[in-house]
């Protein structure tokens, strides 16, 4: 059943989204493990449909600095996807990839490149599982990274889903490697037509 607003998502559709989220995060974890050549574990992700203001509060309030990695999707599925994490999580993740032990609040060019590459790999893994589950061909842009106030970073997906409602699909994921924990949030914003196309692939 096509919807006109993300607030109209049915329970059945939401269960499907949650399942896609679980599978996507599982694939992202495997990809991250391979990239880092070490065992990464993942907690069961929490999938929610939330309002922007609530998401901003979840990630520490509008002025809290966060890292956002954003890419756009095109092809049979149009929209954008963001992977957002706290400054501390991004620092741990960059340190893991670059095998360094930096504790600075600022990020170097190398840190940004590493984060961009991680974004590419985990969102790519997420999208390829989405593509194979649905049989849709999905292309993604080169990801872009920004480090700024949560309100400002999240305004970008907020504006995008502001076109079709006030809620976005949020997947709260948590990766662990030894004593390093990384908490990240996937934010998926398919365009409404794409969303309806996605659901019709599952007979909904």
């Amino acid at each position, binding site marked *: 059943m096509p919807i*006109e607003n993300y607030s109209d998502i049915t329970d059945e559709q939401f269960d499907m989204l949650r399942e896609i989220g679980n599978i996507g995060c599982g694939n992202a974890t495997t990809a991250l493990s391979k990239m880092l050549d070490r065992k990464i574990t993942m907690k069961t992700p929490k999938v929610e449909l939330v309002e922007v203001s609530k998401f901003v509060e979840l990630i520490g309030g509008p002025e809290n600095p966060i890292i956002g990695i954003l890419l756009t999707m095109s092809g049979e599925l149009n929209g954008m996807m963001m992977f957002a994490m706290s400054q501390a999580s991004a620092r741990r993740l960059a340190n893991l990839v670059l095998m360094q032990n930096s504790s600075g609040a600022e990020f170097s060019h190398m840190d940004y490149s590493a984060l961009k590459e991680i974004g590419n790999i985990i969102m790519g893994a997420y999208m390829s599982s989405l593509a194979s589950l649905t049989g849709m061909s999905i292309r993604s842009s080169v990801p872009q990274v920004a480090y700024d106030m949560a309100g400002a970073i999240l305004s970008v997906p907020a504006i995008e889903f502001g076109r079709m409602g006030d809620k976005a699909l949020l997947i709260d994921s948590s990766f662990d490697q030894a004593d390093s924990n990384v908490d990240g949030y996937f934010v998926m914003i398919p365009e409404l037509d794409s969303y309806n196309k996605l659901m019709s692939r599952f007979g909904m």
Partner: protein
Amino acid sequence: MSVRVGMGDYNICKAPDSIVTLGLGSCVGVVLYDKTTNTAGMLHAMLPDSTRIRNNQNRAKFVDTGLEDLLKLMDRHGVKRENLVAKMAGGAKMFAFADNTEISDIGKRNVLSAKIHLRKYGIPLIAEDTGLNYGRTIEFYTTDSRLEIRAVGKEITSI
């Protein structure tokens, strides 16, 4: 006291209070101020134009309908339109996508839309700090008509 304005929201305050919105990115923050009644209004709008969107029930989300409603609210508080001046900030390009898609220049379009509508209402825009690539927290002080701008890793400025 400081009155807080959320994303896709507007509000007003009277002296000696200030009015603030946190973490403006591509959104635009418009302040309208009347010195004679010491009343300030602030809009934090996300999208330039309500007429191009199907789901436009939340009028404060859009520059056009948000300004219209904020002005009505100020009217009810005895503010005369001819006394109003405006200051504006925000409209950044947060992510450096190379293409000129709707996503990448939404900030610029928010700023342009605010200018068009302010002109329509005959409200002079006396200061702005818009565009570039970083987020801003803005706070307007009725006591000295100053709009303070705070950003991550930058000095505090005022316009």
